[in-house]
């Protein structure tokens, strides 16, 4: 770990987040859109963990170093749990829509548009 700057991890996280954002906006397949959302969540996880490992910030000086590492890891654990629940529900919704509409093109789903 010595010699790898924090900027490297942050840059990787930012690039992955931006790729995921482009995918969410541009793809038409809702399953691929879900995958891009997972990509964005993982980029956020990477950022949490690298900040927790490298932190030496005066802003959070009142919290001890060990507590900050734990904060980062706990945020990642909770993000993983929420992502698992989200994927299960979201894919169930996609299956239900496919059963009623016989298509999964995201641009065809406009019945909620007022």
């Amino acid at each position, binding site marked *: 770990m010595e010699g*790898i700057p924090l900027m490297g991890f*942050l840059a990787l996280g*930012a690039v992955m987040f931006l790729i995921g954002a482009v995918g969410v*906006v541009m793809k038409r397949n809702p*399953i691929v859109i879900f*995958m891009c959302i997972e990509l964005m969540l993982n980029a956020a996880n990477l950022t949490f963990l690298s900040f927790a490992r490298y932190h030496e910030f005066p802003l959070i000086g009142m919290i001890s170093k060990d507590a900050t*590492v734990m904060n980062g890891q*706990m945020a990642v*654990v909770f993000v993983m749990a929420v992502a698992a629940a989200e994927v299960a529900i979201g*894919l169930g919704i996609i299956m239900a829509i496919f059963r009623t509409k016989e298509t999964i093109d995201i641009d065809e789903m406009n019945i909620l548009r007022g």
Partner: protein
Amino acid sequence: MTVETVAFVILSLLAVISAVGVIAFKSPVRSAICLAGNFFILGVLYFMMNYDLIGISQILVYTGLIMMLFLFVILLLNLSAPQMLQEKSYIKWWGAVAVAGALGIVVFSQVIMPLEWAVNPTSNPELGTTKSVGTALFSNYVYGFEICSILLLVGIVGSILLAKRRG
């Protein structure tokens, strides 16, 4: 240039390439396989940062569980080649890439560049082990843990309801 720096550069290049593969392939199965590779590489990066438990649960939860779920749904929906969706035009793609690039420039110049001084990790590398994570999870974060279990229970019931409904 230590060995770890070289390994980090190679791993992050692979991660970016597989992330691009997720949105570049037309077939959702290939996207899913690229995403599994990306999650696996992220797990290796977590190991490099001495997060043992987080790394192994990344590989188990994402590469094992979520990717299997995605592949099952793709197979069940039977999205074979004739049903593959028409993608949007190239002009829109370039517009999206330009907007993302502008956002990236803002983030790089304002958030990442000021953190240039953070070169070496400062925290105790023992704090990624199963023991320390378990202690924290069942002491300071026990309420969040219980709320997560309720959320997952609701998720299980909801997905069964959504999957079983007929007509």
